[in-house]
């Protein structure tokens, strides 16, 4: 924005910010004269200004000022009905031309416009209109966190009142609800163990708890809670909750969906942080700016895996690149993805709405959104070292990498314009060449020719020779270059740079050697597909030898290759045909390469017709002329020397220890294709009108939305800022004590992960588009408690929640309570829930005695990758369900985006391409098919059967009892036992186990 807002503008801003959020009535037309400010401005703001203002001038038309309206003839005060403005907004067949993507104006609104035009369309030129911004902070989530007093206890069960219960009970009392009594101990231990660890309680754990609880239930309960919170399984279970919102996966997604083999350190970071009960502010800061904090620990760099956890468009970044619009779109979407993640996850704010216009409901302007783009303007998603390389080494590495980066940029700067010029000038030639090949082209046979061993240096002479059987008169010798169509190597593959051709009657070329051609004193151009003719005007000979004295370069080494050698006799016949070939060395890899291929009469011919061939030669000559004209020897030399420099630098890089790497955000990494690091130099970020890269507006510097009064809106005063500092400022912004969102956001999640339903039903959106809290004071009480706890301990909040009476209620249905609160919003009962996908799988492994409890490290794969070289296909059905390597907890599985694990997906596991704050709990026929027929379930049934047979060998009744204790947490009642025992006896233990794994008693937690 260039002009400072006028008095009027700011008044309108404020006034219409409020109007924008409330539905305002439209004055009845005709009743009183239309007032521009009161009647017309609001409807222009509502329908038009988002796209037609001084910044966003869609259709080159702005309604910020009256000038366009008048100058472009949109209003006709003499004949209002024929005003273009009215035509545009008047619907025909229910569709009006304007507003383009919105509801048409009501007839009342059109009447207001009409009256205003008829009255002269008066508009005080000093009034400038801006699109409406919701600017007020008067919304529950944006108000400071209150410190509500704990309500006085009501009817206390056992004297000591619990703050959580005090808040909950008050609302229950107000609604006349009677809460359920405490559930049975066996129900409670199962509930708690699943909620805190994601695993079923073991019979031993149950025995210990039962023993202790007989003496003092509350003490026993607290001790159980402490034991469970202290097991590593807590982090594994709660880590999964976090990974759901963090949209964590181990492949890129999009096209090709390549694996990210180094994503897992972030997963371990999350699990470790929860297990060690890291202070929440630190947990947040590390995930946004772990590399910019003082005394950065290796783990804090792994934390940056958060920003990189979402999908990444390999093609857009690596193949297209920022040189093209599509590549810049990919970068834009990439930053948008990061920003959305930060704000959805930590702030429960839907920042992404402000990409094309100011946020419709919340006080977030486009400027705020693009300031956040500036925060992430220098980072990309890539592997980076987090451990095992010293700081000094890292710096040296970085210096080398940046040299390489600069050299490659120089290379492109030199080569690209020349390539383009060449392409421009040769397009017609190429077209004709293509035509000739189309008509006369020959298909290549696979017998390419002779190929020497590979050499590391160019100056390692190699030779190949032909024995003509006896001394013959020879007219000429033709050396046909090899042609290798693979990998774009093409014509002239391995043709020597310097060489000689000699004749002799001595197979050893010891004496009587005659040199027919000596091209060893200078480099020879590559003849490509053109045979080299060597004329013989001397005496007969038996042996002919070609010696390469300087080999041609392949990618990183050197070889000598030829397609065919023809030795033409006096009568024009080929004397070399099928003769014996010897060589200094050779790679014999049939059918393509071998000594005999040199004399087999099979070699690459471009065209089958001689005249066409002549034309082709001429065209090729012209093409070469154009090329050498545009690509001077100096340029070639320059490029070659750059290449040599890069090779040398890469060698130096290889000397460093590899270190441990994590897939995270980075500014320094090895360039690959068009994907090059910024080295910390931020990309220019502009405000984009309607989110379109083709309409850039003002240049933006880092900042964040002023969602509370003391929020830091602009991070730097000058244009000169460091990338890391920007992310560090954002981290500081997030964990500011005044930030009302961050504490409420995590508290709400902790509540949800404990009670199965959040206090705010939209955990990623606390804005006006989301839901309001069911227990605002309770939420604030807990949020303040977490914020003000010196350890900001998440576990202490969880401990507080699970020690409440509310958590321990039975899940039993009560018609009277349900009549008042069907949804159980006020928690009069516990929420029965289904096992999550991970819990289902982990439980099968655990109760079958198959679970591998090793923690951390690279993920196990329960699929086989096919076609890894291009776009990997993740084939789950090829994986052997008996492979014990896959028997680890599900949180350690390799998470694929494009092809999610079918069994877990059917069981509602999170879609890793989006932040999933709440999972579905669906019940479908496909689920039944999966849990009944899946190979993994069947395999576990066999394992479980084996386990039962070993542990309870004596009787089927024992086996049924044990099985139910393991799977359900309690023994069967007589009716259940009858059914199960009957099936076991008739169909065996494995079939019995399969049934048990599908029972509601197993898959639901009461």
């Amino acid at each position, binding site marked *: 924005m260039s002009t400072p807002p006028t008095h009027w503008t700011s008044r309108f801003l404020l006034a219409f910010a409020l109007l924008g959020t409330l539905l305002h009535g439209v004055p009845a037309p005709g009743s009183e004269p239309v007032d521009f400010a009161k009647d017309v401005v609001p409807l222009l703001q509502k329908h038009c200004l988002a796209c037609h203002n001084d910044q966003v001038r869609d259709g080159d038309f702005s309604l910020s000022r009256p000038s366009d309206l008048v100058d472009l003839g949109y209003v006709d005060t003499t004949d209002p009905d024929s005003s273009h403005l009215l035509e545009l907004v008047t619907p025909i*067949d229910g569709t009006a031309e304007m507003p383009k993507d919105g509801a048409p104006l009501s007839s009342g609104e059109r009447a207001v416009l009409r009256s205003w035009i008829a009255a002269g369309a008066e508009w005080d030129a000093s009034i400038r209109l801006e699109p409406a911004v919701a600017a007020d902070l008067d919304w529950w989530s944006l108000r400071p966190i209150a410190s509500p007093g704990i309500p006085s206890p009501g009817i206390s069960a056992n004297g000591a009142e619990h703050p959580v219960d005090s808040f909950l009970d008050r609302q229950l009392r107000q609604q006349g609800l009677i809460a359920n009594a405490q559930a049975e101990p066996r129900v409670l231990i199962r509930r708690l163990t699943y909620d805190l660890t994601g695993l079923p309680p073991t019979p031993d754990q149950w025995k210990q708890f039962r023993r202790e609880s007989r003496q003092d239930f509350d003490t026993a309960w607290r001790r159980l809670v402490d034991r469970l919170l202290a097991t590593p399984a807590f982090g594994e279970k709660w880590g999964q909750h976090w990974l759901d919102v963090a949209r964590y996966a181990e492949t890129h*997604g*999009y*096209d*090709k*969906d390549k694996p990210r083999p180094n994503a897992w350190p972030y997963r371990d970071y999350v699990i470790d942080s929860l297990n060690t009960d890291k202070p929440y502010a630190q947990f947040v800061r590390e995930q946004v700016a772990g590399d910019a904090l003082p005394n950065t620990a290796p783990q804090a760099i792994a934390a940056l895996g958060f920003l990189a956890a979402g*999908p990444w*468009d390999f*093609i857009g970044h690596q193949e*297209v690149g920022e040189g093209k619009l599509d590549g810049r*779109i*990919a970068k834009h979407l990439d930053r948008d*993805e990061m920003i959305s993640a930060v704000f*959805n996850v930590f702030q429960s704010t839907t920042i992404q709405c402000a990409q094309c216009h100011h946020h419709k409901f919340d006080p977030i302007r486009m400027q705020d959104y693009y300031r956040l783009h500036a925060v992430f303007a220098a980072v990309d998603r890539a592997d980076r070292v987090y451990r095992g390389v010293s700081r000094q080494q890292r710096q040296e590495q970085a210096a080398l990498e940046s040299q390489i980066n600069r050299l490659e940029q120089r290379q492109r700067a030199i080569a690209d314009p020349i390539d383009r010029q060449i392409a421009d000038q040769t*397009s017609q030639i190429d*077209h004709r060449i*293509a*035509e000739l090949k*189309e008509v006369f082209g020959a298909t290549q046979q696979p017998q390419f020719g002779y190929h020497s061993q590979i050499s590391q240096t160019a100056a390692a002479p190699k030779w190949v020779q032909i024995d003509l059987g006896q001394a013959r008169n020879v007219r000429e010798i033709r050396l046909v270059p090899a042609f290798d169509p693979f990998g774009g190597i093409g014509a002239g593959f391995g043709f020597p740079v310097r060489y000689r051709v000699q004749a002799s009657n001595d197979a050893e070329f010891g004496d009587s050697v005659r040199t027919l051609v000596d091209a060893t004193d200078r480099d020879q151009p590559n003849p490509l597909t053109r045979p080299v003719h060597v004329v013989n005007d001397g005496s007969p000979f038996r042996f002919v030898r070609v010696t390469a004295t300087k080999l041609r370069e392949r990618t990183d080494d050197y070889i000598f290759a030829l397609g065919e050698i023809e030795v033409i006799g006096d009568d024009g016949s080929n004397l070399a045909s099928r003769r014996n070939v010897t060589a200094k060395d050779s790679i014999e890899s049939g059918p393509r390469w071998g000594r005999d291929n040199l004399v087999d009469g099979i070699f690459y011919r471009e065209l089958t017709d001689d005249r066409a061939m002549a034309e082709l030669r001429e065209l090729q000559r012209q093409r070469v002329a154009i090329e050498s004209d545009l690509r001077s020897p100096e340029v070639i030399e320059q490029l070659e020397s750059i290449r040599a420099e890069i090779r040398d630098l890469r060698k130096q890089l290889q000397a460093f220890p590899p270190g441990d790497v994590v897939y995270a955000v980075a500014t320094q990494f090895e360039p690959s294709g068009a994907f090059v690091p910024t080295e910390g130099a931020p990309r220019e970020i502009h405000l984009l009108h309607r989110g379109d890269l083709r309409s850039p507006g003002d240049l933006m510097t880092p900042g964040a939305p002023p969602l509370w009064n003391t929020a830091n809106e602009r991070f730097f005063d000058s244009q000169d800022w460091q990338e890391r500092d920007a992310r560090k400022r954002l981290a500081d912004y997030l964990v500011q004590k005044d930030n009302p969102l961050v504490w409420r956001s995590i508290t709400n999640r902790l509540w949800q992960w404990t009670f199965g339903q959040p206090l705010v039903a*939209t955990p*990623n959106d606390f804005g006006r588009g989301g839901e309001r809290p069911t227990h605002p004071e309770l939420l604030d009480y807990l949020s303040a408690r977490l914020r003000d706890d010196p350890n900001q301990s998440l576990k202490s909040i969880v401990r507080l929640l699970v020690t409440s009476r509310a958590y321990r209620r039975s899940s039993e*249905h009560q*018609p009277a309570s349900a009549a008042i609160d069907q949804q159980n919003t006020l928690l009069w009962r516990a929420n029965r829930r289904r096992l999550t996908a991970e819990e289902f799988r982990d439980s099968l492994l655990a109760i079958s005695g198959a679970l591998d409890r090793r923690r951390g490290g690279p993920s196990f794969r329960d699929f086989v990758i096919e076609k890894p070289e*291009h*776009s990997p*296909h993740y084939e789950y*059905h090829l994986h052997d369900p008996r492979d014990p390597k896959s028997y680890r907890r599900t949180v350690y599985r390799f998470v694929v*985006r*494009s*092809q999610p694990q079918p*069994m877990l*997906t*059917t069981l*509602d596991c999170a*879609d890793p391409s*989006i932040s999933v704050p709440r999972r*579905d*709990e669906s*019940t*479908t*026929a*496909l689920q*039944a098919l*999966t849990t*009944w*027929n*899946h*190979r993994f379930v*069947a*395999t576990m*049934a066999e394992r479980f059967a084996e386990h039962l047979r070993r542990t309870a060998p004596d009787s089927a009744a024992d086996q049924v009892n044990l099985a139910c204790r393991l799977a359900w947490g309690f023994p069967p009642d007589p009716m259940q036992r009858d*059914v199960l025992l009957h099936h076991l006896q*008739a*169909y065996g233990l494995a079939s019995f186990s*399969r*049934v048990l794994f*599908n*029972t*509601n008693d197993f898959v*639901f937690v009461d």
Partner: protein
Amino acid sequence: MQHTMSQSPITGSRRQLLSTLTGSFAALALGDLFARDGVLSGQLHHRPRAKRVVQLFMAGAASHIDTFDHKPYLRQQDGKPWDPGEQVELFQSTPGACFASPWEFRPHGQSAKMLSDIVAPLGDVVDQLAFVHNMVGKTGVHSQGTLLQTTGFNFPGFPSAGSWVSYALGSENENLPAFVVLPDHRGLASNGAKNWAPAFLPADHQGTVIRPGNDPPIADLLRPSNEFVTAESDRAGLAALGQLNQMHADQRRGDDRLAARVRSYELAAAMQLSATDALDVTSEPRHIKDLYGLAADGTTIEDSGVINERAETEYFGRKCLVARRLLERGVRFVQVWSGNDNGFPRRNWDSHGDVKRDHAPLALGMSRGASALIKDLAQRGMLDDTLILWTTEFGRMPCSQGSKGRDHNPFVFTNWLCGGGIKGGTYGQSDHWGFRPLDRSQETTVHDIYATILHLLGIDHTRLSVRHNGIDRRLTDVHGHVLHSMIA
């Protein structure tokens, strides 16, 4: 005639099927099962013209100017430098010379619509097709282009059109999924399962992948091959499970999910039968198989090497036939793919290297199957309320890449629609190159196409929305206009 499993009596052949089925929920599959409702069931926004949709998706980007969008000017300019009057940034290459289609175009039907020889099989039905030659995309990147056409957004996280339709209308047959995906036999297209994911819609609106000819065609449809599982133990196990789960539910009144879970096993049983029946094309009479171009020895068609016409015809035709059988049985939305993701050798429509080599077999196979599907639906009276959409991620350039290929063209491409209230004709033109829309102020987007499709299904696209992360999300984003002129 509509024919669903649940309404017909168990016939002899089905009994036979029951006994031979390896998995046997069969004993539980009793009684009529009622349709699942969608959020708009019984309260559509207006009278629908269509009830179901088939989306034919050409993965890799099919060339409009080699198939449906005839460009005589390009023929005149063939081989000459291409100058569209603006700087053109291509995906892989720098623009080569003008490159006329290697195929002849000939007039077809009453309308004398010009079709390339490689889509000539669609000539018989061309008068019923509504061509949109001024489609525009957002980028020339496959993954984004594919997502844009399948979900309305060019980045992941949004429900597929099929999921939206399933969510809105539900299923007409509870024994089959409402949304079925028939992937290319070679594998999945760019983005894989994201193209039929429900994203933030409930999980049961996910497209169910069916691979006709595979064993099993639906994941976990049949009982596992472990030794301990026999037809008898399977049946008895389900019976025992039903009893146990019923007891569990009875002890816990007031929780619908528990009863629903009991029922889900019954539905699974019904699905086992319905799906097996729906996919069994062997029962089709010979003239129908001939119509779709299916060989007698269909399953042994050689397709390990380069793309070939016989395999394309066979595989695509079979999918079209299966699609018809599914539609007949009440499936709401069928997504049929031709081509999978990129690879070597080429296995989709992404003809950078050689349009002639790849497009001819792909287009001939596709157009035979598509043409057969249209005729078959028509002869069963189903074309009137079945909508067909032919689409792809973007078009291809009028200039050459290398000498025989074409690079991506997100600036213009072609869609066609058919059936379900659509009026044949040509709506929207590209310029004389086939490079951009003829009238750049009049372009058509995927949002317009979906607005129209939803409209024909009785849905106002602006009113089918779900709040997700604070935004009321729609299939048509904040865009989309119903193409009224195309509606009969």
